[in-house]
């Protein structure tokens, strides 16, 4: 019996070592491209030209590259635009997706499953392929070169957000709705007053996922927000670096880091909520 316990203990120990070795290795793999970026971002032009890329910079306080990158890419402006886009897109897509999920989950009507299928199939239609026709539609709606136009386009419901809300509604007992209705609430009231506040964890989770993809979206932003001096967003501001500064990786890396930092901060702040939101959403089989 003691022998058995010893064996189990050794097994556990080996498993544990393997586990941490794996985790550390993969965290290293995940971070090393960025670490190389950080190292390079602090190098002066001369250092960059003369030292190996993985040699540490002479001074970790050399923020010149960040200043240059910030100015060249006009990032202050870009952050402001990105912020506006993010707020509107998130508010819109959360509201739209939750309303859709509410109706699909709570009401039985003809076409319910058809609508679900339409949204699922929509994820399979490759966006790059339909870009020409989308552009024509945006043109005829006069939505080109305008922030609202881009916002509406980005709000276009995506299935992950809807899915998260659908799962969440599944776990909110229908008795909640029923008792509210007995109290004289309308369906709108049920949704806005009773259910929406309860959806907070799902809202946070979906907002983070959608927020990250919106913040990083560059293909459509480049196509539809053409006047870069007015409507540049953070992701497209990086295009500056593929032009005249294409080789100066010390600037490029600084620019890349500047764009990552806000996303990183928000992610770290909300990390717990994301997971608990996912869990509360009870993504069950």
């Amino acid at each position, binding site marked *: 019996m003691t022998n058995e316990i010893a064996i189990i203990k050794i097994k556990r120990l080996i498993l544990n070592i393997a*586990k*941490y070795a794996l*985790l550390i290795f*993969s*965290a290293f*793999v*995940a*971070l*090393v*491209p960025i670490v*190389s*970026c950080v190292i*390079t971002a602090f190098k002066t032009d001369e250092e960059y030209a003369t030292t190996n*890329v*993985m040699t540490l910079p002479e001074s970790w306080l050399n923020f010149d590259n960040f200043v240059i990158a910030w100015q060249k890419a006009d990032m202050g402006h870009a952050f402001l635009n990105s912020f506006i886009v993010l707020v509107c897109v998130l508010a819109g897509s959360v509201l*739209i997706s939750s*309303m*859709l999920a509410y*109706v699909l989950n709570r*009401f039985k009507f003809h076409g319910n499953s058809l*609508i679900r299928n*339409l949204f699922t*199939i*929509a994820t*399979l*239609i*490759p966006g*790059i*392929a*339909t870009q*020409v*026709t*989308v552009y024509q*539609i945006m043109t005829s709606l006069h939505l080109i070169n305008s922030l609202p136009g881009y916002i*509406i386009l980005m*709000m276009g419901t995506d299935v992950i957000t809807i899915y998260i809300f659908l799962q969440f509604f599944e776990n909110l007992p229908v008795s909640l709705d029923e008792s509210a*209705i007995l109290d004289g609430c*309308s*369906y709108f009231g049920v*949704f806005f007053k009773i259910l929406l506040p309860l959806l907070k964890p799902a809202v946070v*989770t979906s907002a983070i996922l959608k927020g990250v993809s919106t*913040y990083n979206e*560059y293909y459509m932003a480049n196509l539809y927000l053409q006047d870069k001096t007015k409507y540049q967003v953070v*992701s497209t501001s*990086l*295009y500056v*670096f593929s032009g005249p500064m294409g080789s100066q990786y010390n600037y490029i890396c600084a620019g*890349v880091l500047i*764009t990552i930092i806000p996303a*990183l901060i928000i*992610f770290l702040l909300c*990390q717990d909520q*994301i*997971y608990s939101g*996912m*869990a509360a959403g*009870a*993504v*069950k*089989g």
Partner: protein
Amino acid sequence: MSKSTAAAKPRKTFGQWLKSMRGQQIVCTIVFLVLPLLLLFTFTYLPFFKMVQFSFFDMRYIGRRTFVGLENYIDVFTRDDCFQALLLSLYYMAGSVVQMALALLFATILSFKVKGDKFFRGALYFPCLICGISVGFIFKFFFTHGFVLDTLLSWVGFNVEALPYWLRDESINNIVLVACSIWKYIGTNIVMFIGAIASVDSTLYEAADIDGANAWHRFKDIILPSIRTIVVLNLIISVSGALSAFEMPYVVTGGGFGTSTYFVIMDKLAHTDQKVGLASAMAVVLLLLIMIVTYAQKAVERWMDKRDSRTPKALVQTDPNTAATASSASPAKVN
């Protein structure tokens, strides 16, 4: 809300109907569905139907066009490059299976007691926070001969001169790109899986622990069945993503040295050669292919369901209270 009462004014009986639960439900359904469906129609289906229409024409982005019937489709099937490019998708498909397996592994590990779990979760999700343009910059820098990767490998004893050119060598460059894409996208899968695993009823683990089930059994018999829906959803998305792989070759290699995936070729045909009709036909063919693959996946899933239902039911589907007995009765448990 105000809209519905306003509309109710003209007729009393209609107003009454509106106030009835049934009427309210219909109004609510319509009001809540209009916007999502309108957006879906405008920015997904309308462009899609137009694209299908384009695929029957010989046309450029702008200018005159002629109807050519099925010629574009015949072209897609007779050209060598289209279907050769689809072979590349096999790399990405294999990659997406690896990605799912790794994501499950990390999610499982990180769902239980681990020191520094927050750090590891954050680190693995981190690449998801990076914009595609940045990824292009970063990886070109990373893989340049004698730069980051080569330096790291030289530290552990590799001779830099003997190392391959990561993006040039056609025997490895596609694998390198697939690895990059796993790096970039695995974080989302991990987040979703961790969330799903957290929702598994923890009494099930306790019951299993009493039975002395090891980690593998815990994963296979409790976790996997519980989160199967979301695993399948992720798998479908990433396999269809593999067929339409675009971003990595586009931003890192520009499709050179045999890394042109189906979409990179399509993009070139549509833009450089202005063969919009042909490119549209390619997109339609790919969509059909994706649907077939998706359907096949679902069929396999259903078949597995049937097979499962013949053996004793998976743990989650039983009542937690009886789980202990169920698990001890399960033939899968070998102590």
